[in-house]
């Protein structure tokens, strides 16, 4: 085994051949055995393998694109489980975007936000209210529901409204000393949920606990998006944008100031970093990703009510970030995918299997222990175990590597241009 991996290391051609073979085999097995969850999951694993190859980044993106846009939808498409696979893939995409948003807040800026799902709720309600007749209750003008054409604009609106709320919540909250932040955001998450639950009076804005039903599906040129396989592409497009944005922020002046604040607030401030503004920006950008996906979620479910936005959801997203690796984009993507699939597929499958066994009298299996109900236990255990044994997560965050040679040249110019230096020999130990 070791010999094999060492041989593979450095041999890009072999890597690419193996990867293609792997994708082919898993695709084929999914294509032939349609109901096989295992084959579907294995196919998704190809993306992880792709991450670990040593191919150039551009090629990796192209291959990932081909697998996500072409291979997965196609090979899953022929059987009866098609929509359920696409549903899983869509939900994974939604959670990945949210986890990447929370990763900015927790992973990059080091702010523990336990009420993150609030922003998802805000996005969902923003679209839900206007894409149903609900808005007619309080809007003096306009005809509601708005048509599904408005969905595309609402992605942007959801993004901005969530960011705005991120700032509004952040202004008071971020003045609070570090470790209180966790408890305050937790409180805010609950407040938002309670407010949505009760904002059916005095003016009926959210329809309270009844929720909003029959949210208009997205529509473009008369084509309606109703099935998971259609939403899949919307989510994929947004996700692409989110990943791009996160990576650009991470390695910019903005990302550096987040990390500086995370590492040492006092030093960051004394280097000219505006503490509150920097944290607000993290809150706002993190929230905006959630807001966008909230809009998509409302349109996909066609139903919005407060029960989708509980504390458990916020913790679930936190678990994704911790499991994958705080501050690590590939890690968080992995974490979100693993947890979502665990939630949607593995736990229910295992539960069904165990129920089957106890029905057949093979074992006696108490309903109380059914894995589908054990989320809190599993998430709690993951949090503790990772905090103690692997705080950097499954795929730890990596620092950028700068090319010394090119910097040396640049520095040369820099010196000639700007700095009056008489002796360039530094103070050396």
């Amino acid at each position: 085994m070791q010999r094999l991996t060492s041989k593979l290391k450095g041999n890009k051609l072999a890597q690419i051949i193996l990867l293609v073979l792997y994708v082919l085999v898993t695709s084929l097995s999914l294509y032939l055995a349609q109901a096989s969850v295992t084959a579907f999951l294995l196919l998704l694993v190809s993306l992880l393998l792709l991450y670990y190859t040593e191919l150039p980044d551009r090629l990796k993106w192209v291959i990932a694109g081909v697998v996500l846009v072409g291979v997965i939808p196609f090979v899953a498409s022929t059987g009866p489980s098609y929509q359920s696979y696409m549903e899983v893939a869509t939900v994974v995409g939604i959670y990945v975007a949210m986890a990447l948003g929370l990763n900015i807040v927790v992973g990059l800026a080091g702010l523990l936000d336990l009420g993150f799902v609030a922003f998802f709720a805000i996005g969902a309600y923003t679209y839900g209210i206007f894409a149903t007749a609900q808005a007619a209750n309080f809007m003096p003008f306009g005809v509601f529901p708005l048509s599904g054409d408005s969905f595309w604009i609402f992605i942007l609106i959801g993004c901005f409204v969530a960011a705005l709320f991120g700032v509004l919540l952040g202004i008071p909250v971020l003045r609070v000393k570090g470790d209180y932040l966790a408890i305050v955001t937790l409180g805010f998450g609950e407040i938002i949920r309670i407010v949505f639950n009760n904002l059916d009076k005095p003016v009926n804005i959210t329809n309270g606990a009844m929720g909003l039903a029959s949210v208009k599906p997205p529509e473009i040129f008369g084509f309606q998006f109703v099935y998971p396989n259609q939403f899949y592409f919307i989510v994929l497009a947004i996700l692409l944008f989110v990943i791009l944005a996160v990576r650009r922020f991470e390695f910019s002046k903005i990302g550096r100031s987040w990390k500086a604040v995370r590492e040492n607030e006092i030093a960051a401030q004394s280097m000219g970093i505006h503490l509150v503004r920097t944290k607000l920006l993290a809150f706002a950008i993190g929230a905006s990703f959630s807001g966008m996906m909230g809009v998509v979620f409302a349109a996909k479910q066609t139903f919005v009510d407060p029960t989708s936005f509980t504390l458990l959801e916020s913790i679930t997203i936190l678990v994704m970030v911790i499991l994958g690796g705080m501050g690590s984009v590939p890690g968080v993507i992995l974490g979100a995918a693993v947890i979502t699939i665990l939630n949607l597929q593995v736990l229910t499958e295992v539960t069904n299997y165990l129920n089957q066994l106890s029905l057949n009298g093979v074992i006696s299996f108490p309903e109380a222990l059914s894995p589908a109900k054990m989320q809190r236990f599993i998430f709690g255990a993951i949090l503790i175990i990772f905090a103690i044994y692997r705080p950097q997560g499954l795929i730890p965050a990596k620092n950028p590597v700068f090319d010394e040679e090119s910097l040396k040249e640049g520095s040369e110019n820099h010196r000639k241009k700007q700095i009056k230096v008489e002796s360039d020999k530094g103070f050396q130990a």
Partner: protein
Amino acid sequence: MSILTVSNIKKQFGGLVAVNSVDMTVEKGSITAVIGPNGAGKTTFFNLITGVYQPDEGNVQLGSSSLVGLKPHEISRLGIARTFQNIRLFSNITVLENVMVGLHKQLKAGIVGTLFQTKKVREEELRAQEEAYHWLEYVGLAQHLNEEAQNLSYGAQRRLEIARALASKPRLLLLDEPAAGMNPRETRELTEFIHRMRDDLNVTIVLIEHDMKLVMEISEHIIVLDHGEKIAEGKPAEIRNNVKVIEAYLGKSAVTPA
């Protein structure tokens, strides 16, 4: 011409008066030392100048602008940079990025520019990397650029703090015990380096230090704090022979022969 004027500044923590009615004037381009026994209030004094603490009374003036009531980041923008007695680096990011944070306030990239990676933003980022590298060369840490700051040796971490401070192009640089934990050779090199820094970069330096050899060699002006009070001030030669100073350091018995 004076660059920094501290007048009658006071800070109290509960019942403890950490800094009591201290005055100080720092000449532009000079090297000034603040000395005094442990707990004398030296670090608190720096914290008052840099806005980490707000003074209870008194005024701090940089050039013609008062610093009282300003936040640390605002004061940094006016041209004061500092290092910390208990090193405060950004431990989990690279050495180069640490220095780049020092450049923060000179960079203009905004959200939109960053999102679309405009040519201007990319150029600026590249220039920033080069400039940061330059400062690493200046303090002799260039070969460590890609290491995590926490993995540097103690002495190197102190130098990195200086590089980070220099990157912010300060008019006034405050060093809090820069030689702490260094061996005699390192201290000698540091002494030279501080001199050179002042000459090369035209920066005014105020430093807190316990190493008397370094202090006497380097500084043009010294102020002595004890229990929050300024007990002496003057040229190194004057301080060396000041009775009160010797008393503060060695106790009364050192000056009153038994």
